[in-house]
C-alpha cells in the first residue's frame, strides 16, 4: 500500500476489519495530506491531535469487535456543523472565535460510529454561494485545473469537495440548501448526496434557510456515500423537522440491478444555451440507463423555470430571520462605535461581520417579508413552491427516479461570476427544484469536459427513497468508469 489517502472508505473499512490497517496509520497519512493541502485553502481549522486520539479510540473499538462503517475513517467537517470546543464560524467573520459548547447531531453520529475528525472545512459564508468565493477565509481552489488556470470548487461546500477530491479526507460532511452538495460535487468529480429533508438532524447545524437546509456527504464513491450517509442519518427529537423513520442499510441498496426501473427525463431541463457537452453527457446517461435495463420516460416539471426565483425569495427570507441572532451580544464579533448605543453596536457589528453576499440576501429577505410586500413576494413564492413540489409528485407517478445534469457548466475560473449575482445564481438551476420539494438527490461523476474538468449527473428520488438514488448513482458510476484524477499540483 503506497498511499493510504487514495483508499475508498469501503476499502479502508475492510482492511481495518482484517487488521491489515490501523486507524492510526490511516489517520497519520491523512494528517500529512491535510498539512500539504494548504494551497487549496480547504481546511480553516486542523485538529490533528484530536484526530489521533479519535483514531486510537477507533482502533480500540475495532479490537473490541465494535467496528461500524465509519470507524477509524478520517473525515473533514464543513464549518457549518457545530463541533464542541472547536472553532465554528460558518466561515463568517461575525462568528469570529466562536467555540460551541455543543456538538451537532450529524457530527455526533459520526463520532459515535468511531469516525475521526481531521478539521473544519471552508465554505461560502453561511453557505451562501456557488463558488466558495464568499468565505471570510478566502476562496477554496478546485483540485481540478483548467490547464494551469485555477477553477472554483463550486459551493457552498467548497472545502468539503476539495478535500475529498484532493485526497485530504476520505469523506466530508456537507450541506445543501439549493444545491450546495450536488453542484460542487459535480465540479470536482466527487459523489455528493443530499437525503430527503428531515432525514438528517439540523440540530447544531448553523442555519441558512431552515425549510431547505439538509446535511449530506461528499465521498469518492457511491458506496462510500452510502456508508457515510447511513452514519449521519437518523431521527433526532431535538429537531422538530426531523422525521422518525428507520434508516435503511443504504449500502445494501447497491445491487446494480435497475432492470424495469422507470427513469424520468424532465423535458424542461433542456435549457436553451446549455453547453453541448452537458447535453451530450445527459444523453450518455440516458443510454447507460437503457443499457442497464431501465425504461426511460419523458416527464414534465412545468414550473421548473420558476424554481430559482422562488428559491431566491424563500431562502433569503428565512436567512434574514435566521441571521438576526448574530448581534454581538452572546457570541462572535462585537463592534462598538464610540459613544454608540445598542443599535449602533448592532449596525456596526453586522456591517463588519457579514460579507457582501450575506448582506445582500439579508436585505432581500427583509424586503420580501416587510409590510406591503409579503403577499406579493413571500406568500407568492410559497405558493409557487407548492406547485413545484406538486410537479414532482405528479412526475413520480410515472417514474421511480429522475435523471438530469447537475449543473449547467463545469467549474469556472475565479471572479468569472462574482460581479453578477444572477449569473451566479443560475448555477443552481438544476439543483434548486428538488431542494424546494425536499427530495433526495445526488450528483455522480459521469464524465469530463473538453478541458478535462469533471461533470456530474444528478439523480433525484422520491421522498425517503435514497436507496433508489444510490442504486442508480452506482450504475452511472460504473458505466462512466472514470479513471482520471486531479494531478495533485499542490504536492
Amino acid at each position, binding site marked *: 500500500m503506497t498511499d493510504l489517502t487514495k483508499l475508498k472508505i469501503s476499502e479502508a473499512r475492510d482492511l481495518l476489519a482484517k487488521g491489515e490497517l490501523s486507524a492510526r496509520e490511516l489517520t497519520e497519512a491523512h494528517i500529512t495530506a491535510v498539512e500539504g493541502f494548504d494551497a487549496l485553502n480547504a481546511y480553516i481549522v486542523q485538529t490533528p491531535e484530536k484526530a489521533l486520539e479519535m483514531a486510537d479510540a477507533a482502533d480500540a473499538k475495532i479490537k473490541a469487535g465494535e467496528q461500524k462503517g465509519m470507524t477509524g475513517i478520517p473525515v473533514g467537517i464543513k464549518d457549518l456543523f457545530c463541533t464542541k470546543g472547536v472553532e465554528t464560524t460558518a466561515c463568517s467573520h461575525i462568528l469570529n472565535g466562536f467555540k460551541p459548547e455543543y456538538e451537532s447531531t450529524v457530527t455526533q453520529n459520526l463520532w459515535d460510529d468511531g469516525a475521526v475528525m481531521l478539521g473544519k472545512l471552508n465554505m461560502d459564508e453561511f453557505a451562501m454561494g456557488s463558488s466558495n468565493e464568499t468565505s471570510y477565509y478566502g476562496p477554496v481552489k478546485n483540485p481540478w485545473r483548467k490547464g494551469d488556470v485555477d477553477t472554483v470548487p463550486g459551493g457552498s461546500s467548497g472545502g468539503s469537495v476539495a478535500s475529498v477530491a484532493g485526497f485530504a479526507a476520505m469523506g466530508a460532511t456537507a450541506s445543501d440548501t439549493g444545491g450546495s452538495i450536488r453542484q460542487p460535487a459535480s465540479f470536482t468529480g466527487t459523489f455528493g448526496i443530499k437525503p430527503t429533508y428531515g432525514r438528517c438532524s439540523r440540530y447544531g447545524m448553523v442555519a441558512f434557510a431552515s425549510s431547505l437546509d439538509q446535511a449530506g456527504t461528499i465521498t469518492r464513491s457511491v458506496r462510500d456515500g452510502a456508508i457515510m450517509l447511513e452514519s449521519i442519518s437518523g431521527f433526532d427529537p431535538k429537531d422538530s423537522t426531523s422525521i422518525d423513520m428507520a434508516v435503511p442499510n443504504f449500502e445494501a441498496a447497491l445491487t446494480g440491478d435497475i432492470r424495469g426501473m422507470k427513469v424520468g427525463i424532465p423535458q424542461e431541463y433542456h435549457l436553451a444555451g446549455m453547453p453541448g457537452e452537458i447535453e451530450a453527457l445527459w444523453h450518455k446517461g440516458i443510454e447507460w440507463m437503457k443499457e442497464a435495463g431501465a425504461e426511460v420516460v419523458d416527464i414534465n416539471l412545468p414550473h421548473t423555470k*420558476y424554481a430559482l426565483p422562488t428559491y431566491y425569495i424563500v431562502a433569503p427570507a428565512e436567512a434574514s430571520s435566521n441571521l438576526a441572532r448574530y448581534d454581538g451580544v452572546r457570541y462572535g464579533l462585537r463592534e462598538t462605535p464610540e459613544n454608540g448605543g445598542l443599535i449602533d453596536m448592532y449596525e456596526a457589528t453586522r456591517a463588519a461581520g457579514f460579507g457582501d453576499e450575506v448582506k445582500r440576501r439579508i436585505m432581500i429577505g427583509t424586503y420580501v417579508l416587510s409590510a406591503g410586500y409579503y403577499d406579493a413576494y413571500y406568500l407568492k413564492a410559497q405558493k409557487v413552491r407548492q406547485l413545484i413540489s406538486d410537479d414532482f409528485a405528479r412526475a413520480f407517478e410515472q417514474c421511480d427516479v429522475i435523471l438530469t445534469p447537475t449543473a449547467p457548466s463545469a467549474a469556472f475560473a475565479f471572479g468569472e461570476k462574482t460581479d453578477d449575482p444572477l449569473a451566479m445564481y443560475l448555477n443552481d438551476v438544476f439543483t434548486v427544484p428538488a431542494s424546494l420539494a425536499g427530495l433526495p438527490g445526488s450528483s455522480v461523476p459521469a464524465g469530463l469536459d473538453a478541458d478535462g474538468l469533471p461533470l456530474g449527473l444528478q439523480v433525484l428520488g422520491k421522498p425517503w427513497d435514497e436507496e433508489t438514488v444510490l442504486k442508480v448513482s452506482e450504475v452511472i458510476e460504473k458505466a462512466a468508469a472514470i479513471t482520471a484524477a486531479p494531478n495533485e499540483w499542490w504536492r
Partner: protein
Amino acid sequence: MSEIDKATVAKIARLSRIKIEEDKLEPLAGELNNILGWVEQLGEVNTDTIEPMASPVNAKLRWRDDVINDGDKQESVLKNAAKAEFGFFAVPKVIE
C-alpha cells in the same frame, strides 16, 4: 412591481440592523432591483387556488414532555460573550 430607491435601501438596512455607508446605498439599490425584477416573473404563475408551502415536511408538530432537563449552565451560556459581568450579558446602555 416596485422600484427600490436609496431611501428604501436605507430603510431595509435599518430594519436589518446593518450599517450601510451612504455611498453604497445607490449601487445596492441597483443590485436589489435587478434581483427583485428577476423574481417578479413569479407573477406569471396563477396561484389563486394554491395553499402556500412552508415546509417540505407534511406532518404535525411533535410535542415534548413538560420536564426540566436543560439549563443550569450559566458558564456555557456566557462563555462566548464579548462582555459578561456578574452572570449577565453586558451591552451598551439602553436608554428607554
